[in-house]
């Protein structure tokens, strides 16, 4: 588990790799399209994509002879999972607060 976390940390530590990742913001792209405008060679881009893929940040699929890369929603899963957990525990606490008050209220009304 820790190994995976370290992998994502190091995957995003490299500014060029972050730039490669950001090229996928607007949708899936081929290696050639990603490399366009970046000051690195296509093989270098492929290498960065491989690291990002190993870290779970991007996914790929074949389209004819091209390989298309996209941001892996599971890579965004870190944020999503955090929010999921946050709301889960927040709503549990909310329900306790509601019910604590609801129990107190009828007593007050009887007084």
């Amino acid at each position, binding site marked *: *588990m*820790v190994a*995976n*976390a370290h*992998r*994502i*940390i190091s995957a*995003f*530590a490299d500014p060029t790799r*972050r730039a490669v*990742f*950001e090229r996928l*913001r*607007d*949708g*899936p792209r081929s290696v050639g399209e990603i490399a366009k405008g970046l000051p690195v060679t296509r093989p270098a881009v492929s290498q960065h994509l491989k690291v990002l893929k190993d*870290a*779970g*940040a991007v996914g790929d699929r074949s389209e004819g002879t091209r390989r298309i890369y*996209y*941001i*892996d*929603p*599971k*890579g*965004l*899963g*870190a*944020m*999503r*999972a*955090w*929010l*999921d*957990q*946050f*709301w*889960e*525990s*927040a*709503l*549990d*606490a*909310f*329900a*306790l*607060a*509601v*019910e604590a*008050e*609801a129990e107190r*209220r009828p007593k007050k009304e009887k007084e």
Partner: protein
Amino acid sequence: MSTQIRPAPVRKSIFVNAPQDHAFEVFTSGIGRWWPKTHKLGPADLDRPIIEPREGGRWYELDVDGSECEIGKVAVWEPPLRLVLIWQLTPEFTYDPDLITEVEVLFTPEGDGTRVDLEHRDLERMGEKADAMRETVSGPGGWPALLELFAQEATN
């Protein structure tokens, strides 16, 4: 084809043994009674978050030293049915005025109580800040739980 990758919204439902108007009230004016004290923005201890009871109202954190930190805004204020909050916190739990994600909360009477359905959506906008993930997991006061959760996601 360029389909945008969109993470699914976070959806949570909970049933509470209380009338709809009471559930709405505790969620909003009573938010200080259930919001986790550990989830705060300012350096001082959290007094309570405050949701101003109107459309366009502020949603902010009030700290014990009197300082305030923005969390977001109130987009829809329809007591006791519906509430839409704008959540403007990054995954690092800092306020970003350019980040707009929505939290919709519906309060539906069910039997003797109320079903509360919460949806936190537009999460891809947080995803656009994905390089913040590095700071999130490695920064001081980062989220140890996040590390674990991420690892689970990554190994799934």
